[in-house]
């Protein structure tokens, strides 16, 4: 499409670029501000001098956070949770999506199975009954309470199965003629062909586990078992000082509350900020392939 650029068109293009640039900066300004506060001295932050650039640059806040046993302990819980939870999510996603991607002519119970899983997005027992289910299965206060209830990510299964369905049927037929069974077909043909989608779904699962906090708060009786985000909830949002011993409170007031919080907020977001730029190209492709069907 080659068009002559009229004056009004040029004007529009200029404005458009400016507006879009402003909007995208606006999306990260608040984060930059918090980052700047976390690198500033407590006096400068308390006096409100810090805008987008650190004032009296210091790493003291990060040293303080790194030395806090609550922080490192909850970080370990989250790492454990991601380490077990994400592979389990992925395994179950693939194992469910593959059979459901078959058409019901060849795998008749497919529709029934599909409904069993879809109903769980449509209808749920709610908070209290879930709490009881976790309690009765005796995983309360263990890492499994954070992993098992959300082990089957139905939304990701749907993304994955839509992707599988778009793979050429001939590949599968050829594999069967060569003597492969379903397991071989899945591992040797479907998985290698689905890397973009798998990367997307892995990103979703990882972000999901990294970000969840509510299950940590209700299923973990002892705050020492809190994952990182649940712990951050108590310090950054709630300021529940009952969690600290009296010595801790003094410790806490020595270092400015605001700068320490900012450092923790930033650390809580850091892994996502690091991984995200590399994976985001995948997920645009992955999401779109899975969601928009013509």
């Amino acid at each position, binding site marked *: 499409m080659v068009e002559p650029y009229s004056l009004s068109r040029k004007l*529009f293009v200029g404005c*458009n*670029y400016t507006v*879009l640039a402003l*909007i*995208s900066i606006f*999306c*990260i300004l*608040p984060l930059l*501000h*918090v980052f700047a506060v976390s690198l500033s001295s407590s006096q400068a932050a*308390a006096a*409100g001098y810090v805008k987008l650039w650190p004032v009296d640059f210091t790493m003291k806040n990060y040293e303080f956070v790194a030395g806090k046993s609550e922080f490192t302990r909850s970080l370990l819980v989250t790492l454990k949770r991601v380490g077990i939870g994400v592979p389990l999510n992925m395994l179950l996603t693939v*194992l*469910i999506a*593959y*059979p459901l991607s*078959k058409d019901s002519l060849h*795998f008749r119970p497919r529709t029934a*199975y599909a409904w*069993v*899983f879809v109903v*769980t997005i*449509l*209808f*749920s*027992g*709610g*908070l*209290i*009954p*879930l*709490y*009881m*289910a*976790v309690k009765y299965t005796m995983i309360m206060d263990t890492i499994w309470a954070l992993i*098992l*209830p959300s*082990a*089957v990510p139905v939304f990701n299964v*749907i993304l994955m*199965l839509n992707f599988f369905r778009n793979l050429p049927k001939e590949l599968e037929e050829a594999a069967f003629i060569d003597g492969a*069974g*379903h397991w071989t077909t899945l591992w040797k043909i479907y998985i290698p062909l689905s890397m973009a989608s798998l990367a997307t779904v892995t990103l979703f699962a990882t*972000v999901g586990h990294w*970000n969840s*906090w509510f299950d940590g708060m209700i299923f973990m009786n002892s705050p020492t078992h809190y994952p990182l*985000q649940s712990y951050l909830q108590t310090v950054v*949002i709630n300021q529940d000082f009952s969690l600290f011993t009296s010595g801790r409170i003094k410790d806490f007031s020595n270092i400015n509350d*605001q700068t320490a*919080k*900012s450092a923790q*907020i930033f650390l*809580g*977001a850091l892994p*996502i900020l690091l991984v995200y730029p590399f994976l985001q190209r995948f997920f*645009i492709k992955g*999401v779109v392939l899975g*969601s*928009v069907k013509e």
Partner: protein
Amino acid sequence: MERRLSYKKYRNLPLHLMILPGLLLVLIYCYGPMFGLVISFQKFIPARGIGGSEWIGWENFRYVFELPGFTKVLWNTIFISFMKLFANLLVPIVMALLLNEVRKEAFKRGVQTLIYLPHFLSWIILGGVLIDILSPSQGIVNEILAWVGIKPIYFLGSNAWFRYVLVGSDVWKEFGFNTIVYLAALTGINPSLYEASIVDGANRWKQTMHVTLPGIVPIIVLLSVLSLGNVLNAGFDQVFNLYSAQVYETGDILDTFVYRIGLLEAQYGVATAIGFFQSVVTLAFISLSYYLAYRFANYRIF
């Protein structure tokens, strides 16, 4: 014949085996709780369990609907979720149209990368950020307002502002992500339509109005219909992390209400009854919306 049948059965066995682990987990942690809904008809006492608690029929439901605060909470939920629904539909469409006019690929990708980012951060992180920047005494937003001569506003503690902060920050978090789908739909528009419209003398604005917008109408219809299922879901994570007793008046939603009644006040039967009500309404709306989506946009989830 019989041999072929048994062969087929055997051949699909791996498929059943693959589903089995996921099925078991779903039965325990999704269907189990659904059966747990019976406690909304009980005066539930945890020590006695479901078998030992007294059955009281619809008493919990009656109690909930007669609670003085309940209608307010219900109204807040609907009000907030509708505002979000509308804003989250409108902003991404405008954004996608603007991005679509950008010819420099690198710039486009840069903008996309930045606007998706907040979607991937938790409401704990974003809540912490918002509490910090919106604070009436030290927040950077109020400092900027002070330059223009506006008195500090306690955004998160004011009933006049709280809902709009919720909607605004939700749009801020999600608009980039929602834009993806529209951009994808835009790339699917047949280029010959544009060529034809240019031959007919349409300028860019007319092309946008008569080719681009109609081209994405199906996806707009689809997404708005599907989001109907969320009428009773105004966003627990966000509200819970931003609200305080001062703004219960305008910010308390069903989910936060259930949390307080259920877990903090230990009225399990009552809280489950509210959750049950919520699930039934949600189910009705989702079913309706999927039916509408199927009817008008020919959409099926799987």
